[in-house]
């Protein structure tokens, strides 16, 4: 393939191609709408014949996440993808990974819930993704792509962060970004790490005990509470460092904004159209798009909160991120929510109307 070739593909397909190109060692997944194209694309591309990447259709999401846990424990770059009900099943494995400090990538192409819900897009797994999701005090690094290009780009970003901090990372997408086609430039090829590189870069991994070291033991268990508290304190220190260093966000026309919309992923795309409509009417609206949902751009939103007359949190859910916005602004400005649920997607016009009703026209 020529360098920098501009392609047209679905977000799900972009994830698969990016995985092959960014040195991913293994993909383990289970079919579920609307993300099945990830596994299908990998199966079609046969990366095991080119890069040596392993692709396996597992028996369940439970098995998939535990394959990632095993692969990551052995120092390998491994990923899975699923959609909301499948990711709910994976929470146990993700908690184990967080507890044992195992890197790995989970892609959630969200659909509406609760339960089996719908196959249509949603952002209602925000809490699950940003609060940990499983048991215990932990966090997962969460990236929210808003375009097919970002679906491709964030695979490597997520792996790098995941290995840097020895923490699971998630790409929190949804049926819109997963199913839509846009132009995309795939990332350049990066070879898979060699055995020596894995052993050198992951000295903690269970790769076979060389004589010059003690056995590497990967576990999240410690029955000694004092030890377990130390482990937790260590995790919290790590999370503090991630909060300090890894916040990513994007702003659109925030400089002169009197009102602010905060939206992530596909909702940010729709909100941007709403912004265009508002600006055409002379309403000074800005948009802040968190790219990392955890760590959340708390400081930046706190700053904006002091400058604007109100904030609308635009989410394709019942109002989840709004909690983080309110925690960031601490009452400095009114914060309201607009969203749709159950697979319904708000239109730009609905967002404009909500902005006027809930923020601009409030005295």
């Amino acid at each position: 393939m020529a360098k920098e070739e501009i392609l047209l593909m679905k977000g799900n397909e972009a994830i698969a191609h990016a995985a092959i190109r960014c040195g991913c060692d293994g993909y383990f997944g289970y079919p579920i709408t609307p993300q099945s194209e990830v596994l299908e694309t990998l199966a079609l591309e046969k990366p095991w014949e080119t890069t040596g990447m392993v692709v396996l259709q597992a028996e369940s999401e439970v098995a998939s996440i535990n394959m990632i846990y095993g692969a990551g424990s052995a120092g390998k770059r491994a990923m899975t993808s699923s959609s909301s009900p499948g990711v709910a099943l994976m929470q146990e494995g993700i908690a184990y990974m967080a507890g044992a400090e195992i890197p790995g990538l989970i892609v959630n192409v969200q659909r509406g819930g609760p339960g089996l819900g719908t196959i249509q897009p949603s952002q209602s797994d925000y809490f699950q993704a940003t609060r940990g999701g499983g048991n215990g005090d932990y966090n997962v690094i969460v990236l929210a792509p808003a375009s097919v290009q970002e679906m491709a780009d964030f695979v490597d970003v997520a792996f790098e962060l995941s290995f840097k901090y020895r923490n699971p990372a998630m790409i929190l997408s949804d049926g819109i970004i997963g199913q839509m086609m846009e132009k995309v430039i795939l990332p350049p090829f990066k070879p898979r790490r060699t055995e020596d590189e894995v052993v050198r870069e992951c000295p903690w991994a269970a790769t076979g005990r060389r004589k010059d070291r003690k056995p590497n033991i990967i576990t999240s268990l410690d029955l000694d509470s004092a030890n377990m508290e130390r482990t937790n304190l260590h995790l919290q220190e790590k999370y503090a460092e991630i909060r300090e260093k890894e916040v990513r966000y994007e702003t659109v026309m925030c400089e002169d904004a009197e009102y602010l919309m905060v939206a992530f992923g596909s909702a940010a795309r729709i909100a941007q159209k709403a912004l265009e409509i508002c600006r055409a009417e002379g309403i000074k609206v800005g948009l802040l798009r968190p790219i990392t949902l955890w760590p959340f751009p708390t400081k930046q939103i706190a700053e904006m909160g002091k400058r604007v007359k109100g904030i609308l949190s635009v989410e394709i859910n019942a109002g989840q991120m709004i909690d983080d916005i309110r925690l960031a602004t601490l009452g400095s400005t009114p914060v309201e929510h607009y969203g749709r649920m159950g697979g319904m997607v708000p239109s730009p016009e609905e967002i404009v109307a909500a902005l006027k009703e809930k923020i601009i026209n409030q005295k």
Partner: protein
Amino acid sequence: MTKEEIIQPENLVYKKPTLMNDNPMHYCPGCSHGVVHKLVAEVIEEMNMEEKTIAISPVGCAVFAYNYLDVDWIEAAHGRAPALASAIKRLWPDRLVFTYQGDGDLACIGTAETIQALNRGEHIAIIFINNAIYGMTGGQMSPTTLMGMKTATCPYGRQADLHGLPLRITDIAASLDGTQYVTRQSVHTVAAIRRAKKAIRKAFENSMNGKGSSLVEIVSTCNAGWKMSPEKANQWMEENMFKQYPLGDLKDTSNE
């Protein structure tokens, strides 16, 4: 000849394997786990795979196996060891990858992972300790608990209508096209231990020779859970367990 004359390095005929460290094991006195741990360690040493072994421990009594054998270990979520092993073996094909699981872990919560990994013919070995009870949580009924056997959750004895029937998961494994070697052994006598060791060796060698999956069931005692002395437990096992779980190879296509 004095004892001191005999106890000389050149006269050494048996000691615990080097891979088994000196950490005191948390297993109850007389527990079969210790014997199987020793066999696993001996086989790894005899195959010179100390530096190339990635072992997966379960949830259950063997959760702390990683404290006793000095190889690299990963402690899996309950029942998921075969999923971890599948991924690891595919990503590290030259490593010896095995799981060590009990009946609660392998035959109950992890049934899907067990059957699927075995039937995919993953080049892994599964060591299955079947003592017909949940040991670590205090002796509750497991899928392999015998009919009439009393446990904390079937205190009046296992009954078909209340609890269902004992699961012979090793027989299921033998029926799978993906398995090469499926055997049922025990470690209650010197002769049985020797046979069990051979079985573990064959399973490990199969996994290194790309010969599909192997399952070695060790019909074991849980004397504490069964509320018997270790000696009595062995006797009870011979009289009761072996009827439900007869010893011997159920399938061996590793030489075909």
